[in-house]
């Protein structure tokens, strides 16, 4: 093995490790819902190559209103899916789309883009 091979091998392994850590194990941006006076839990979510915040904490049994603002034209994010709540919504670019739901059970419910590439989760407590 020459020096170049050693460098390439070590860099490759380090990069792989970084990819695995970065995408699967690093900490996520979490946000808890803010309850309004009328008891609706509101969360603003920006959609741009992903959902920020992408972990949303809400309380069980209270209505939730998610405001998705899609800050891009990229077609990846044009659809929003929340299969556990039977929701499929088109998100128009540069517009806010309201999604209302009532979580009855505690648990973690994933929401994704139309193809399941962009992911976020609704944590119901």
């Amino acid at each position, binding site marked *: 093995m020459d020096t*170049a091979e050693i460098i390439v091998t070590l860099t490759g392994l380090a990069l792989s490790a970084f990819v695995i850590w970065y995408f699967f194990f690093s900490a996520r941006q979490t946000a808890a819902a803010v309850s309004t006076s009328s008891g609706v839990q509101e969360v603003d979510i920006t959609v741009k190559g992903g959902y920020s915040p992408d972990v949303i904490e809400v309380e069980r049994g209270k209505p939730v209103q998610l405001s998705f603002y899609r800050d891009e034209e990229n*077609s990846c994010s044009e659809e929003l*899916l929340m299969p556990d709540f039977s929701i499929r919504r088109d998100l128009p670019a540069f517009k806010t789309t309201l999604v209302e739901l009532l979580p009855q059970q505690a648990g973690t419910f994933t929401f994704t883009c139309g193809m399941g*590439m962009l992911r976020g989760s609704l944590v119901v407590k």
Partner: protein
Amino acid sequence: MEPTTKTETLDIEGMTCASCASFVEKSLTRTPGVQRAMVNFATEKATIEYLPAQATPATLKEAVVKAGYGVTERAPDTSAADRQAEIDQQKALAYVKLKRRFWVATVLAILIMPLSMLMLWPAMMARVNMHWLNYGLLVLTLPVLFYSGREFFTSAWNGFKHRAANMDTLIAVGTGAAFLYSLAATVVPGWFMRRGLMPEVYYDTTATIIALILLGKVLELRAKTQTSAAIKALMGLQAKTARVVRPDGQEVDVPIEQVQLGDLVVVRPGEKVATDGVIEEGTSAVDEAMLTGESLPVEKKTGDPVFGATLNKTGSFRFRVTKVGADTMLSQIVKLVEDAQGSRAPIQRLADKVSAIFVPTVVVIAILTFVLWFDLAPVEARLPLALVNFVAVLIIACPCALGLATPTAIMVSTGKGAEHGVLIRNAEALEKAHQVNTVLLDKTGTITRGEPAVTDFVPAEGQDAAQLLQVVAAVERQSEHPLAEAVVRYADAQQAPAIPATGFQAIEGKGAQASVNGQAVLIGNFRLLDEAGISLSPAVRRQADELLAQAKTVLYVAVNQQAVGLIGVADTVRETSAAAIKRLQAMGIEVVMMTGDNPQTAAQVAAQVGIKRYFAEVLPSGKAGKVKELQAEGRIVAMVGDGINDAPALAQADIGLAMGGGTDVAMEAAGITLMRSDLQGVVTATELSRQTIRTIKQNLFFAFIYNTLGIPVAAGLLYPFFGILLSPMLAAGAMALSSVSVLTNSLRLRSFSPAKN
């Protein structure tokens, strides 16, 4: 004529207390032309009725401002249809842009390709300066990368910031790597030569990949708009205006949003019914195919319900509005289909798990491919080989095919179902329906019509049948009893002329009496005649016994104290039942019937429609138990009911099918609602679910196989054995086609049509 007023709603700013509200209200009321003003402090809204001739929204705002408050400009309320129109417009625009980017990439790639292959003609090569050629290629590639392919890079970067990776990440890293290598070879060729490497460039690879991926996207977008075509068609059915009858009798066309409960609406031949209601005047035939899938027009008369979006055929009628907006049948169907399209099929679970980790995993595989090729290939070729295979792995991997496999099929098929009057609650119900091997039918209302009909009309010896029917119908026309209605329907069907009856009197629990043509007529059960002291002749008695033995209800008719005839009434089997049951059996499904009737009747109906197994004398409370009994035999049971007292059984079954629009309770409990009242819907639902699941399985199989074969081949796994390497350009072509194939396969479901018998 009273001048028409208009209503305006304003959002008021700056009100701090209830007295502010009354202040604004006063100011508005004093404005010329304002009939009435109401200001709500809590909602901060003012509702103003005004004469458009004397006031305008601008003068109203002025009045509010004069009172010292502000008016918030608010976006007009957008209806679902408007929102959809805006989304469609955006999508159309995005499609145009995408096509432009595709054409730019394609034209440039076509130029770049032959220029990159000059080395194939050594004679040409000798005349060209390699160095300047590379710069020329670089200039041609830049627009491909930064105009056509920019979205891949921005999307990948945005995703990266969110710790998310998608298809664009793979394309960006792949083309980016090829481009950067080429750039280095163009700008500092000396560095490569010193290390014994040819300074090769991959501009053709970069440009071709982007052009092909964009081609895939163009095709994909075009196909995707078709998956939701059915639901858009449903939404588009909504009438835009209604012809409302004002209290003064005037007919006015008003926008559908302004139609209110209790309004009287006129519908003329050839017009769409504006919303749901009940006919008050007139008769007609209405085409309800768009809601129920029933192709024959339905006869409607006073008292019958009509539904918005259906088409009035022959007569004109007036109906009283009972439902508007989101409560109408059409809106509910749209909602149900939308919900179903957003739901997840259990079959998708594995694909979901895989796509969640797909892209980062592919990136790792690509990196390891690079390392292995670099370490194992001959020194002079290791860098280009490592690079080419690295790029090929990234480009061939297609998470889209996995992601599209299930949802697109579900979307097409739920829409298709609605077209045929089969409403599927969610993807899980659709999936469950294809596993069903036993269908349990609640006899009444499914196999049979669930309403009595005259089966036998038996005049006593010496009586004229036609004349007797006239007399009987004359009495029964006055009655509201369901059995009487059956007799009237029968008489109408026989076209018996209507004659008047006088002195009609209903006798609770026994029957009715009236006088027709001066004759005293009694119609009712045996007790009615018995108590009137009328005896039956042995012949009539024998005929009555025969009818009773067939489990029919018998009506006795007496004229002038003499028994003159019998009428046998029974729930009749629908014409379509036997054929539908046969079809289900041909599909390998056992059809079982249950009924509250006695075993003889049950056996008779079962034989009539070709059912071998049945449960008789089942009490309403025992229906769910029978479902359990079948399930205990290891069967997967679909329960079909008309929704009246069988909600628990529908819920207990693996899949419940509620028939005839069903009651709300039944629709809640049922996985599938059949808008049409016949068993053909069960066949349609089963066939649709089987075909959909078959499509999904094909899609998933293809998506998994494509990726599990494609990635190793792209990594160069075949090279040591067969010397085969996959060019990144071929990889791009395969990738572009893979998601399009999945979509196209799903769209095949659009040609679904239920088998006709």
